């Protein structure tokens, strides 16, 4: 058996003796030193270490491949969803908070676009996909703050604006308020073309570059799984729908300047600004400002439904204002 201790310059007899000594046998064939157990133990340990290293390498490689597969699958899923988002959608979505901030910052007077002066024009316009946001003007000046503070749900104002009650009675308004306060599906049906700004903010980031960067930068499967779970649970569809909206309906509640006791649902007499903006060119199509005061509500219903009734009444006021301006225009 060859050994590395033998060189090709050694005479054969010497080479044989060196090989014998490496094997642990003396000149007379007897074992001079044969640490076979030690040798076997070392070989076994070395083999075990190598096997462990190889195993670790293989496992890590498999893990890396699984990670990359998972990452690719998630990115593909995001990309698939993102294909529905056009550059215009992204641009409009990015600018909607600024529009809200502009509406909350100041009131520049009533506005009614010419195309809304025709009878039924407002109803027709409101039938198009729209974004809705209601926020307190005191929430902040920064668009992001206002966006975050916007009400996450549609309310009685949207319902009554899109589907006004037949009469302006407390009972009729209350029926609308009940719908607004009821299950999501009952409110959703008549207002299905309107998406809340919160939905846009909740779902769209999952199609945006920062989230993609997180996915690309994830180093562990657990992290990827967390991102996938967040993506799968994100309201992507509503966000995509919201991103398609080119109308923005904003309602800004101004701080109450008259003091007084607030109702149980927080409603107090205050001014409210309503604006309807074309997001394609940020042109304000409708802007009105009205006072709301729950004093007109019967005491039995006021404490619980003041805000809803006021909101519905406000929606009727907007319709009334549009009608009034249209009639005035027609008369002129």
């Amino acid at each position: 058996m060859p050994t590395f201790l033998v060189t090709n310059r050694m005479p054969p007899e010497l080479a044989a003796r060196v090989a014998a000594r490496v094997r642990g046998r003396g000149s007379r064939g007897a074992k001079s030193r044969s640490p076979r157990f030690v040798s076997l133990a070392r070989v076994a340990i070395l083999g075990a270490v190598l096997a462990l290293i190889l195993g670790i390498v293989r496992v890590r490689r498999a893990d890396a491949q699984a990670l990359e597969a998972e990452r690719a699958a998630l990115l593909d899923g995001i990309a698939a969803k993102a294909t529905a988002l056009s550059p215009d959608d992204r641009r409009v979505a990015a600018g909607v908070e600024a529009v809200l901030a502009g509406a909350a910052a100041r009131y520049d007077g009533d506005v009614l676009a010419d195309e809304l002066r025709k009878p039924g024009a407002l109803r027709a316009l409101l039938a198009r996909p729209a974004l809705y946001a209601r926020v307190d003007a005191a929430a902040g000046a920064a668009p992001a703050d206002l966006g975050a503070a916007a009400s996450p749900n549609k309310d009685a104002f949207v319902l009554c604006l899109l589907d006004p009650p037949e009469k302006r009675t407390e009972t009729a308004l209350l029926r609308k308020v009940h719908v607004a306060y009821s299950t999501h599906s009952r409110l959703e049906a008549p207002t299905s073309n309107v998406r809340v700004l919160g939905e846009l903010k909740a779902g769209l980031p999952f199609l945006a570059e920062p989230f993609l960067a997180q996915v690309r930068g994830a180093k562990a499967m657990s992290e990827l799984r967390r991102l996938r779970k967040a993506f799968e649970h994100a309201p992507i569809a509503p966000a995509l729908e919201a991103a398609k909206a080119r109308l923005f309906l904003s309602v800004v509640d101004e701080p109450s300047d008259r003091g007084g006791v607030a109702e149980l649902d927080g409603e107090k007499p205050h001014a409210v600004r309503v604006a309807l903006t074309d997001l394609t060119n940020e042109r304000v199509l409708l802007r009105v400002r009205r006072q709301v005061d729950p004093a007109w509500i019967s005491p039995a219903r006021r404490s619980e439904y003041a805000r809803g009734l006021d909101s519905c009444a406000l929606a009727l006021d907007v319709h009334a204002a549009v009608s009034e301006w249209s009639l005035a225009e027609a008369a002129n």
Partner: protein
Amino acid sequence: MLHDRSARGVGGAGDQAAGGRAEAARAAPCDLLYATPFARFDDEALKLAISLAFAAGNQGGLFADALERARVGPTTFEADAFANDLFLKTFVGLCLGVRVEGRPYVTAQSYVARLLAAPPAEAASLEFRRQILGELVEVPALRRELEGLYLALCRFRKLLESGAGEWDPNRRQLDLLALLREIVDRAAGGFAGARSGLARLRGFGERVQRSEAYRSLCELLAYDERLASLKLSVTVGADGKIRAFRLLSIEENSENAFVGSALRRILGKVELFLRGYRFGEGEVMARLILAVFDGIEDELAPLVGLLGDCELYLGALCFRDQAAAQGLEVCLPEFVPAEAPRVLEGLFNPLLFSQGITPVPCDIVTDRHDATVLITGPNSGGKTRLLQSVALAQLLGQAGLFVPARSARLSFASSLVVSLIQETRADQSEGRLGTELVRIRALFERLPPGAMVMLDELCSGTNPSEGEEIFELVVRMLSRLSPQAFITTHFLAFASRLERQGSIPDLRFLQVDLGANQEPTYQFEPGVAKTSLAGRAAARLGVTGEQLSSLVERNRLSLAVARAR
């Protein structure tokens, strides 16, 4: 002449032809003691012991033990018949010690004593030794070479028997191999001009030098001494500190059989580690050293015998030097037939060196060797010392060594029996006469024809008339064995009668020569002494009436004083 005599190889070497051939085959080729080499050691046991000593050391006494158990050649002498009475071990320690350049060396004295006590039965071995000694005397350069070889063997023995201790085991083994190379080179080169048996050393050395094992050994030592040569350039500043250090060139000893590439060296270490050895250059070297040793280990066992042989010859040369330092001469004797005259000129007793005195040499001449010589004379006249001197001369002569005489003409003796000391033992069942008779009986039980016999004060333990009767009987019986007998006695009248009557053949008489003041001159002349001068001896040793009387008075006075206190 000695080939006819039955020879007994002490230790079991038989005289069978087939066994002899086998013996010769196993025999050490550098045997300096026997004309026909024979196996003196248990080869396998000795090789195993050497192998263990090489590997681990701590085999103190390996050489001494091996020499102690070594067989000696065929001999007709029985050591227990003379060794004690001749103080053989004392003689060896006193006179055959080895000194080189004035420095004494510890020798295997018991082995040398055994060699002396077993002179070779074959004449060829005797002549073989005489030629070696003669050449060592004639050619001082050869003596110096032998001394150098002996010193190298001593260093080798010391290193082999010592443990590694804190030494690097590889370093120790490499030093051993280097010493072995030196020994082989000395044997091959130092005795190129030898014509005697010393030429065997040259043959041994040259044979080993031609072997692959020796070449491998030299390669390994060269590998150890010079793996590579580096040329360096060192620049030193004015403050003595090194400013620059540059490696100019590296030259590897790439032709050496043990030099491998760096990769091969690393793989070799890994291979040994996986085989259960330690990881490191030391373990690689250990394997190579043992492999080289395996090839040459068969050449190591003969070095044990060679060391003993060197001690014998160097001891003999030192005996010659010692004698010369005291104005005495030694010689290689001439051997003549038994009927030829015995001539010992300038004979001295070397045992007297132990007393720090220079022995007085004497001349002993008898007309033939196969005679019985009765020696008479005063006590402390040198009679017993003469018996020792003659016996030692015979023993040394037949062992092939220098005899303590200026010139000597001897005849071969078939054996040697010396009875000088009459020790009293606690368990002895007989009185002095009985003990003497037992001695006589033992003498005749072992005495072959032609032996040398030394008897001191035969039959002195009984009344003279009965003792003389037994004495005469012994002498008559001895004559039938043609011995070379020397017997001392104080039976002066009896001796004179025998001299007058001349009825016993081959009986000769010597007496102590007395000087002008009746003091022994330690010379001997033919005849029977007229007196033993016992009174003079008594006076010398303080045993006269007057001297004893004064001692008695002194003791009585001392006792009286003690009682008075």
